[in-house]
């Protein structure tokens, strides 16, 4: 007689008492009621729940408590209803799918570094519960006649073990492909987003909600906080809005800029070449910035200008830093779509001498270029431009946009500095989370991109490199250390696999 191999879950069922067994069976009957997915997807979700139950059993969580944590009510009607929603892209997002190329896509990554290693079975459940609160993220990118749009996509959204290079392009071409990925590695939970889906702020809301759900599954009591969405709540009005329409400006500003100097060093074929996190004490960083009578953003910008000058062989021209500005600080908005634009901090290389002389220039530019009025004008320009182009079919817009973006694109900036600011999180987060980090995808023309994010007393300055040349980060490190900041450097090894293409094509 052929012996039937018992599944691990059946083994688990045999080891629990009858009451618990009945409770588990009732749980799965109830689970079935919440499902309207194709059978293959439903089976995967069921296996996820089984694995979570087995994990709880292994760590000694009583069955009733495990079932309470995994309560099917968290699935809501999301997986039971057909996918009928769709979302137009916001004004900032429209350029990303149009300008993307093979191997080149605007991806960014937000991570939370937890004190303990991640339990994949529970992270998977956390994602299953969280995604339903973010219907705009549970979508696949589609091509319309005039614009791309996001089309609802009901499926099991799977977590992935981190094994590859960070911020690699996300495959969005096949049926049901998603525009983000959730990764885990040791104690780190990372979410990589295609920028067309959201911006840093929206991404952070998603990550924090995911982490909060994960912690709840780990047994941490639920705490409500404005920066975390309640996964059982219905999405609020305006979360998928294109808030560029809200801008009050009636005057448009241009996007036209002169080309900026680029740092030296060949652009590698494998990008990013390296990710570096400079971890500093946030209080100390604030104190140093205050000692110069500037904000942390202005201080770091000045250092980036100095480091950029150090990293280039050019002697004439401007060094320009792209500074994303969150429009939510000017307009009340709870959108999870993109609502950020940028200002360009531009200084002639001759005027970049030392921090004392540089800071007043940076301060002045920050004061004039990131005002409500200036940013509103830019938002109005973006909105007006998209409105003007709306009747042109996508198959005409795409090649033109590719050409224009290819000609200008990143060339008007030397680098980017994106400061997400202080992560506002529930008080108990600090007991479980060490720090957050924010990684921009590898630039195609610029040699580096930088970000800053602060959680509790850790500020993480991240550099994404597109060249092997270490001048930029070494100078930045030296400048920070000179001001008395203690820096702990974490990061990746050098991602190297240089082919002849990179040596030939990207010579400076």
């Amino acid at each position, binding site marked *: 007689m052929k012996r039937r191999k018992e599944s691990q879950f059946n083994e688990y069922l045999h080891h629990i008492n009858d009451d618990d067994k009945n409770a588990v069976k009732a749980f799965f009957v109830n689970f079935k009621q919440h499902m309207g997915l*194709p059978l293959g997807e439903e089976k995967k979700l069921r296996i996820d729940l089984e694995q979570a139950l087995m994990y709880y059993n292994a760590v000694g969580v009583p069955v009733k408590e495990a079932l309470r944590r995994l309560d099917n009510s968290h699935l809501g009607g999301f997986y039971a209803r057909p*996918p*009928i929603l*769709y979302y*137009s892209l916001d004004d900032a997002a429209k350029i990303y*799918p149009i300008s*993307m*190329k*093979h*191997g080149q896509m605007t991806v960014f990554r937000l991570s939370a570094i937890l004190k303990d290693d991640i339990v994949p079975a529970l992270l998977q459940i956390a994602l299953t519960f969280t995604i339903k609160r973010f219907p705009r993220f549970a979508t*696949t*990118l*589609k*091509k*319309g*006649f*005039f*614009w*791309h*749009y996001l*089309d609802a*996509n009901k499926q099991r959204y799977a977590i992935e073990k*981190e*094994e*590859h*290079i*960070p911020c*690699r392009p996300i495959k*969005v*071409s*096949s*049926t*049901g492909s998603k525009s983000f990925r959730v990764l885990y*590695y*040791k104690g*780190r939970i990372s979410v990589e987003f295609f920028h067309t889906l959201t911006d840093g702020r929206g991404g952070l809301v998603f990550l924090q909600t995911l982490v909060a759900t994960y912690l709840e599954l780990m047994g941490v009591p639920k705490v409500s906080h404005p920066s975390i969405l309640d996964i059982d709540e219905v999405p609020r009005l305006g979360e998928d809005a*294109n808030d560029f329409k809200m801008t009050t400006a009636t005057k448009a500003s241009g996007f036209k800029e002169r080309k900026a100097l680029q740092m030296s060093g060949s652009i590698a*074929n*494998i990008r990013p070449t390296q*990710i*570096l*996190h400079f971890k500093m004490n946030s209080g100390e960083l604030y104190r140093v910035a205050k000692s110069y009578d500037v904000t942390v953003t202005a201080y770091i910008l000045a250092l980036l200008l100095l480091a950029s000058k150090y990293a280039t062989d050019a002697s004439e021209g401007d060094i320009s830093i792209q500074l994303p500005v969150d429009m939510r600080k000017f307009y009340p908005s709870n959108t999870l779509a993109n609502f950020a634009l940028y200002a360009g901090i531009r200084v002639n290389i001759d005027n970049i001498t030392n921090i004392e002389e540089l800071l007043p220039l940076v301060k002045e530019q920050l004061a004039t270029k990131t005002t409500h009025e200036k940013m509103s004008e830019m938002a109005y320009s973006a909105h007006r431009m*998209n*409105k003007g182009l*709306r*009747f042109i079919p996508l198959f005409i817009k795409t090649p033109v946009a590719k050409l224009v973006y290819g000609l200008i694109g990143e060339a008007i900036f030397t680098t980017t500095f994106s400061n997400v600011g202080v992560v506002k999180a529930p008080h108990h987060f600090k007991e479980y989370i060490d720090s957050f980090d924010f990684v921009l995808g590898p630039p195609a023309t610029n040699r580096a991109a930088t970000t800053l994010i602060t959680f509790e007393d850790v500020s993480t300055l991240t550099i994404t490199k597109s060249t092997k040349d*270490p001048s930029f980060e*070494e100078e930045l*490190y030296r400048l920070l250390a000179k001001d008395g900041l203690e820096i*702990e*450097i*974490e*990061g*990746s*090894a050098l*991602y190297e*696999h240089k*082919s002849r*293409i990179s040596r030939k*094509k990207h010579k400076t």
Partner: protein
Amino acid sequence: MNIKVVYPAKNIRRDLRRNAIYWAKWPFLLAAVASLTVNIIVKGPAWSAIVLWGLWMVWSFVFTPTLIENNRTSIAVKSSIHTTIMVVIVYLVFPRWPGIEVASMVVGAGLIITATLFFSNISRQKQNVFPLIIFLVIAIIFAGVSLYFRKEETLWWAMIVAISIAVAIFLSTAIILRINFLREIKKRFLLQ
């Protein structure tokens, strides 16, 4: 600078497509320029148009496939339209054969293949109906115009066949998808 490595051991996938695009573009450009030059030098029919379109077909299918919505329906539609254009170009260059009628037959065959691929997995493919609709519209216009100008030709029925297939598929799709059909049209024509 001492770096504490906190990322997994590098697992770098060679970007074969990017490398292929980089290396293949030069032979392709060379072939295009060479065929055009030789054609101009030797004069005669513009056969280089066939070469150029052939090169473009290989380039767009093999090296640079669509980055968004590259599914079985859209690939079938793209292949059918490209093949039809090739037939029309061949006919324009060497006109002594019923090229337009053959092109209409290709359209009909393409419609059958696309519809088969679409309906064989309709639960998943229903979100990809738009390329099929576009193809149906193009097919009806193409076959209609061809019929108007070539109704005296022996193979005029090829156009009628193509139109009939297109109308049949259009109606079947609309009936099967019902409200989803209209919803699909609505979202594909978003203006914002």
